[in-house]
């Protein structure tokens, strides 16, 4: 992950720098595109589903190539079927299927067709040699035709089997049909399709893959026994979406190489959308990309949000305007307040000095991130095995609470330490070993690693000494701790000191605004949209959109629709059209010298717009009334 290909970035940077006049904007744009590409590559190259995909390919190879050996199955006309359990996060499935298709086409067979329930009437032409034409006609009794076409001769329905057996086509290659969303298929169509395929499975080795979002029993719900007995089903489980999210989190958020950071609130919004609404990792990544876009757009200093060397370089060449912007950053102002008075004056007046200090602060920020993540992982590995997970089950929860506030001041942290203080020796040693492993792999914080290994050594050296139970009892009575307990409390204190030193909240770091995107409100407004609320807001406060001040009352200057809307809020379930018109005319006539002739027409148009927006509908109860469709009002 570390090889962020600096050379490549350098070239692309200079190339586009020539084309864009403003070097600063261009630098942020470049960084943005680079990071965006990085996110994309990380998510696409995801090896998470590799295991299940490989086992699927293995399954297809086994059945496709070795089906002649399995005599019995041939006779029973069973079609090998893989039921792929994907979970309910439907937006993510497309990626899995794409990689599955590619994998199968590369390694097993070129004849892979994937079918979507919605495109049932579509035609699929994937391969020049064999065109499998699946015409799934979604009508009550209509069925599916499979037409195998050879490269030279176009032979239609009844001859296809002969043509295949007579041709020089490698017989053993299976035909894989992927049903992307099994639940959405019309079950009658599916049944007929399976019946027909099973008739020809001797000549044309079919293999099905069902993409199932809910549970395997969906197969039994959709297919009767006479059909499902034609299938030889094997179940494959893909990774759950929470595991997928955790790996994306590890790669993109808990990674010091990735310069763009999210504040705790923003993470909470994104994770909230994931857990509460869709379970979709794709949408999570999109949210991350969006917040990056917002950050680079709204924060001019985001040009400093890149790799360390480049950040230092651009800090050296800060423009006067940007130096001023730095002075106005809240975190920088806090930093200035802590300095000596003389230094304060320097910082507030001398631009060059600010630039130098800024470089130092950026270095510190990078160092903070470098140390932060290993220690966070260590703490998580220590606390994730505790009962009831006082600091959260997932590392993301721990991360959120760490960057939000001082972790050591929370109750949860106290209770976690309490639990750590009563760990048995072997548990403690195992946990510390895990921490040592984490630190070893990162190759920083060597002194911490040394101390940890020292503790582990001392703990192991205790072996055998503290076995005398009688002594222990004695010590308990006198409230004296045995050597293990002494050592354990030392270890816990050491861990506590690490937490206090390295897991400080990000907001306290000077210049954190450069890297951290924190406007969670904007994100929520954009990603978790409420169409009805915004329509109502637009109708009741039109001046918000027209950038004028709102008078609060119903004024005739507002668009007709808004006036009609506000008037209808004062009515009950049924609205008398005439009264409504009268009120409308009154409002309109309050304005000076308006053209009064067109009011009827304007009113009728506004009412029909209201109907179109779904606020009212005509009713049969009373001819001159309309019914309100929204709640509230009188």
């Amino acid at each position, binding site marked *: 992950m570390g090889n962020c290909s600096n050379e490549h970035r350098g070239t692309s940077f200079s190339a586009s720098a020539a084309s864009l006049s403003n070097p600063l904007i261009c630098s942020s744009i470049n960084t943005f595109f680079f990071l965006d590409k990085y996110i994309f590559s990380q998510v696409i190259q995801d090896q998470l589903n590799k295991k299940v995909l490989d086992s699927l390919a293995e399954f297809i190879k086994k059945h496709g190539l070795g089906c002649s050996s399995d005599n019995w199955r041939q006779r029973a006309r069973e079609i090998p079927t893989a039921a792929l359990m994907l979970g*309910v996060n439907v937006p993510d499935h497309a990626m899995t299927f794409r990689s599955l298709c590619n994998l199968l086409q590369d390694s097993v067979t070129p004849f892979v067709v994937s079918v979507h329930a919605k495109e049932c009437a579509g035609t699929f032409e994937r391969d020049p040699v064999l065109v499998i034409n699946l015409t799934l006609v979604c009508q009550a009794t209509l069925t599916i035709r499979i037409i195998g076409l050879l490269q030279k001769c176009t032979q239609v329905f*009844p001859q296809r089997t002969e043509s295949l057996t007579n041709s020089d086509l490698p017989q053993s290659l299976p035909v894989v049909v992927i049903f992307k969303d099994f639940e959405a298929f019309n079950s009658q169509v599916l049944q007929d399709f399976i019946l027909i395929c099973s008739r020809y499975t001797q000549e044309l080795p079919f293999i099905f893959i069902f993409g199932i979002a809910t549970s395997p029993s969906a197969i039994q719900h959709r297919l009767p026994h006479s059909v499902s007995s034609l299938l030889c089903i094997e179940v494959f489980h893909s990774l759950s979406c929470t595991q997928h999210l955790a790996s994306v989190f590890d790669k993109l958020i808990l990674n010091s190489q990735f310069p763009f950071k999210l504040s705790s609130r923003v993470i909470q919004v994104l994770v909230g959308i994931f857990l509460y609404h869709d379970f979709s990792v794709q949408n999570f990544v999109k949210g991350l990309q969006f917040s990056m876009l917002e950050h680079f757009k709204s924060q001019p200093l985001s040009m400093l949000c890149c790799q360390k060397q480049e950040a230092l370089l651009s800090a050296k060449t800060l423009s006067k305007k940007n130096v001023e912007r730095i002075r106005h950053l809240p975190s920088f102002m806090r930093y200035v307040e802590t300095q000596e008075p003389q230094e304060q004056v320097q910082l507030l007046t001398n631009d060059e000095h600010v630039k130098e200090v800024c470089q130092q602060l950026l270095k510190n920020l990078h160092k903070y991130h470098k140390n932060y993540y290993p220690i966070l992982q260590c703490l998580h590995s220590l606390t994730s095995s505790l009962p009831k997970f006082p600091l959260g089950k997932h590392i993301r929860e721990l991360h959120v609470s760490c960057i939000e506030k001082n972790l050591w001041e929370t109750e949860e942290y106290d209770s976690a330490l309490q639990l750590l203080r009563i760990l048995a020796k072997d548990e403690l040693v195992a946990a510390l070993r895990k921490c040592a492993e984490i630190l070893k792999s990162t190759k920083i914080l060597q002194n911490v690693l040394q101390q940890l290994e020292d503790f582990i050594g001392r703990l192991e050296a205790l072996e055998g000494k503290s076995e005398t139970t009688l002594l222990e009892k004695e010590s308990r009575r006198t409230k004296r701790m045995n050597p293990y307990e002494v050592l354990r409390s030392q270890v816990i204190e050491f861990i506590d000191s690490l937490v206090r030193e390295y897991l400080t909240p990000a907001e306290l770091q000077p210049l954190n605004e450069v890297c951290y995107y924190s406007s969670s409100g904007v994100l929520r407004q954009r990603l978790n949209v409420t169409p009805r609320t915004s329509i109502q807001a637009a109708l009741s406060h039109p001046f918000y959109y027209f950038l004028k001040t709102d008078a609060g009352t119903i004024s005739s200057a507002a668009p007709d629709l808004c006036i009609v809307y506000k008037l209808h809020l004062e009515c009950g379930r049924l609205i008398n059209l005439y009264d409504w018109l009268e009120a409308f005319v009154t409002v309109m006539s309050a304005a000076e010298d308006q053209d009064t002739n067109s009011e009827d027409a304007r009113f009728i148009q506004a009412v029909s717009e209201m109907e179109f927006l779904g606020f009212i509908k005509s009713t049969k109860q009373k001819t001159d009334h309309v019914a309100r469709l929204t709640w509230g009002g009188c």
Partner: protein
Amino acid sequence: MSHQKSFQYADLLSVLERVVDIMSAPDQYSYPSVFIYGHRATGKSHVVLSIMKDLELPHASVDCVECVSSGLLFHQVLSAFFGPDAAALLPRCPSLSDFVRLYKQMSSNSPATQTRYIILDRAERMRDMDFSLLPALLRLQELVNDNVTVILLSEIVWEKFRPNTGCFEPLLFHFPDYSKGKSLVQILSWDHHPSYTPELYASYINILLGVFFSVCRDLRELRHLAVLNFSKFCEPLEKGEAKESDIHKLWKNIEPHLQRAMQTVYLREVSSVQWEQQQMDEKEATTLRVLSAHAHIELPYYSKFLLIAAYLASFNPARTDRRFFLKSHGKIRKTNFLKKHEKTSNHLLGPKPFPLDRLMAIFYSVVDSRVAPTASVFSQISSLVTLQLLSQVGHDDQLDSPKYKCSVSLDFILAISRCVCVCVRLLDLLALSLVIQSQVVRQERSLFTAVSNLHLL
């Protein structure tokens, strides 16, 4: 079934003899149409097709599932009798008269030296096709004036076919079910394993039938089971713990496995490979991991609540909503609180459709926190519909006030609310609505168990 039980293998033979009898004089005109019916896997198509093959009779075999239109049927028949060139002469959307005309034309060029047979498998599908097709095919011999016989194969009796305008009555044959005593054992013993003696396999089949015959008579299913479990049966032989003659020991070894396999008859949830793996792993895992063992479905948080709300809306009368979901509901007189038709349990009547507004109202009152009516909440409803957990009633294009039904079971909802419910209130709601219903129908035991489950929580 009871009168069919008495059928013996000999009966099947007599049926076969009669079928062959019809085909014995190929140069004479045969009976115009034959209708053969019998349960699944009684060998209808197999018998007919092998007779055709053995006697080398000219025939066209068509599976009616494939025939989206009658044109495809005509096409297949013509190309089987007169070659693909003849079939190519059919117009784009051939009608029955086109077919008859072409057939006549072709058969005058090459008149039948022996009876031609058209075999229509899964003939019950013909009923959904053009209404004139079936009566016409039944007397095709007259229409084309050729020596042709139509054989219809079906699982349904002839009475269900007969069109109300009347038609030519075909010759009926019934293929009886296999009896346990002889025929099933014989048929199943045919595919014995090459490395063991046929006697051993026959005794294995006897054991298998002893366990499964009471629940399953489908030959195909029994065959599947036989193959699945045979390796387990042979295990002691391979280990050298028992000899082939040691039937009792082998029986003791296989019996518990067969009992376990009994739970999954007809489900076909595991392939043979996975079954073998499970048999190997079973020492570690006590319970069988099977498909139908209600695999827990992971749902997003609000989807769970939406589903619970949908369930409540489907199974509670709308009149009771005020009582259940408002904190300060008005007093309701106990005596005629429920109307007479509402006194049958809603669980016996099935889910009722409810409008979207009601679903959302219940949803907002069930969820603890305030939920904004965001677009993603609404999109979750439609994704629940695609997952078949809810089903939309009426047309898909109904934009304003669409109606839904909840199509999941009580167990499923209980499982969901168990993992969502930190709040006791929701459980109370579920319990309350159930109690009210179960007060009315006391004999419905499942509800009581459900309620007691709730109390256990």
